[in-house]
């Protein structure tokens, strides 16, 4: 069968939803960040697909930007995580409840 744009978009949607559900479900903060990366990947696929559809390589540029942002966000997120771990000896987000009354 011919692979249409829609196929790629549906694939990206499925991956995005997977990442989203994973983000809600998992308790381990590191895994949560990994799910975020999944979601970002799905978006990258969408951009690439549209870029191919419209024959505009600007989409590729955006994907590159996305790479950089994802990297930066992962770095900062992990740094924060490390700091939290140092103080509380846990990466389980359910244990971070001090804001509750």
């Amino acid at each position, binding site marked *: 069968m*011919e*692979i*249409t*744009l*829609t*196929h*790629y978009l549906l*694939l990206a*949607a499925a*991956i995005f*939803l*997977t*990442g989203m*559900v994973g983000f*809600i*479900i*998992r308790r*381990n903060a*590191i*895994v949560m*960040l990994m799910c975020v*990366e*999944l979601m970002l*990947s799905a978006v*990258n*696929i969408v951009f*690439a*697909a549209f*870029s*191919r*559809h*419209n*024959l505009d*390589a*600007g989409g*590729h*540029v955006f*994907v*590159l*930007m996305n*790479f*950089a*942002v*994802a*990297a*930066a*966000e*992962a*770095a*900062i997120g*992990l*740094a*924060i*995580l*490390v*700091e939290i771990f140092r103080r509380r*000896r*846990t*990466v*389980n987000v359910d244990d971070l409840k001090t804001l509750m009354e």
Partner: protein
Amino acid sequence: MEGFLFWFCGSLMLLGGVMTVVQRNAVVSAVWLVFAFICASGIFALLDAPFLAVMQVLVYAGAIMVLFIFVIMMLQGPALAEERTLLKLPMWPAVAVPPMAVVVMLIGYLRGHGTTALGAAVPAGFGGPEMVAKLLLGKYIFAFEMISIVLLVALVGALALGREERALPWK
């Protein structure tokens, strides 16, 4: 050929994603994610984006995931501890609502609009490094510069957050 490759890479990527989410062990999750990224690279290749495919492997799989695994290894013990259950049963409906809503919407859309074909044939060199570079340093030079600042900020931030606590003079 293309169809086969799409289904192959696509389903493998989906598998990788699901396994990332489902696996209890953080390291195993990370490895599955690497797998998923490599499949994503394949998808990029299918979409006539060779440069992106390579960059995906280099940056995502090669740098970001390495960082993840590095951190997991650093935080030995609690990070690797197996989680009890994924989610208490009564919570599943609430969690399922957003994805279900999106799925329903997509089905409805497909019924209404059908599929859209990919565009016409691709010019030579599309998605190659030369073309991307021309755009990156030409039309999108501003974004390029900004992203480098973002990276700089992230670098400084990570450094500031990551270092050991020293006895500061005013403490």
